[in-house]
């Protein structure tokens, strides 16, 4: 008899942070694995994390691609290590991008920290922006 597929809905921000903590510790010994994969990889593959519009990494990549004028933004194709300088954003674009990042953070946590435009301009690569929004949205979750 075929197993019934179960769908578990989880908070996007909490799931993203769980993946980050797992990845951070998976270089150490005695890591938890499942079906011969690291647990973080298993969870990512079993979920729609990489494409879900509610996922912070996807939302941040969409915001960056939209601001850069890409005709058909496709977040999975945007490499995490892509240099932000390659997009050629000027100050007007950075202000608009910062506004969007703050909107993403608040949508996940109404108590999110304010992200400054200076912090966004300091981001060297795309994953720095993802980390910035994640950290802003993570405030008070631990309290």
């Amino acid at each position: 008899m075929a197993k019934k597929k179960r769908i578990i809905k989880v908070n996007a921000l909490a799931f993203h942070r769980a993946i980050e903590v797992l990845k951070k510790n998976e270089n150490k010994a005695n890591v938890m694995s499942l079906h011969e994969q690291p647990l973080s990889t298993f969870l990512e593959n079993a979920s729609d994390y990489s494409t879900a519009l509610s996922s912070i990494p996807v939302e941040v990549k969409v915001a960056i691609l939209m601001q850069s004028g890409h005709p058909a933004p496709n977040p999975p194709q945007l490499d995490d290590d892509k240099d932000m300088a390659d997009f050629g954003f000027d100050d007007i674009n950075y202000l608009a991008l910062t506004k969007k990042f703050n909107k993403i953070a608040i949508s996940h946590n109404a108590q999110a920290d304010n992200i400054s435009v200076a912090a966004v301009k300091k981001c060297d690569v795309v994953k720095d922006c993802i980390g910035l929004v994640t950290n802003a949205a993570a405030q008070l979750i631990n309290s």
Partner: protein
Amino acid sequence: MKKILSAIIFLMLSFHTMAQQAVANTQSWFEKNVKISQSMETAEKKEEPAQFQITIPKTDSSSWLINIGISVAIKSKSANWLSKLTGEYHKNTLTDEKQNNVLVGYKALWLFSGKNALDHFIEGDLKYVYDGELTKHSVASNILYTFLTNNGMWNRTKYNSDNSQSMRLSLHGGIQMQHTFQAKTSQSKGFIARPVFNFALYYNLNRKQAAFPPDPALQFSLDYTGRTDAINSTGIKENYTHLLKAGADWFLAYKPVRVSLGASFNYGSDPLKGLAKQQFWLLSINIFKG
């Protein structure tokens, strides 16, 4: 299955500590905080590169063309305000009417309003202006409005479906004020308020590259500024003045600065920058760092 569910629930509930992701700033302070272009007057002028040309003949006097603007960012924790210290130097001895102009000051950019499709900005500056040709010292300020369309091409580069072409537009409108407090001729002294508008268009033919965004190979640009001296207490009436620049750039290098060979047609004047009314063609090496 129960073990997996337990693990997920445990991780979701046990976030008492989260290591701060270090935003590693591997780029130097210069790369992050310093911009170089032709002018710092408006944000879209980032597309106008600095220009250099110097000839020093054996017997005749030297000839110069320098159009350069440099800005250094000022630290801030704001989400909708950016400010910087700016300096510009414009020297041109190659044309019919010479230009020798220095501007030093402070500039700010404020995102004051916006919804999904449209963001609204105010750009303002306050600067000291020295005109070497007229030996004139002034204090000047621009307060300009502009907007960004989050799906369009106003203050945002938009690419076609295969990224082979891209375009960007900008429109600024506002007021320019200048108070000349010291000059060689007394009729130059006084206060002028000029309503001003600027329209700019940049059209790129891009290199065929897999990575996005592609580097531009050729850029065609058009920049038009119109102004009138609505209030003028000096002895020199300006009436309506305008400045048209139309150009093409062929790009030679992109990082860490963008270098291009450029040709442009210039017609009109810019009283604030000491550019008297004239028309000329210009071929130059251009350098831009955004």
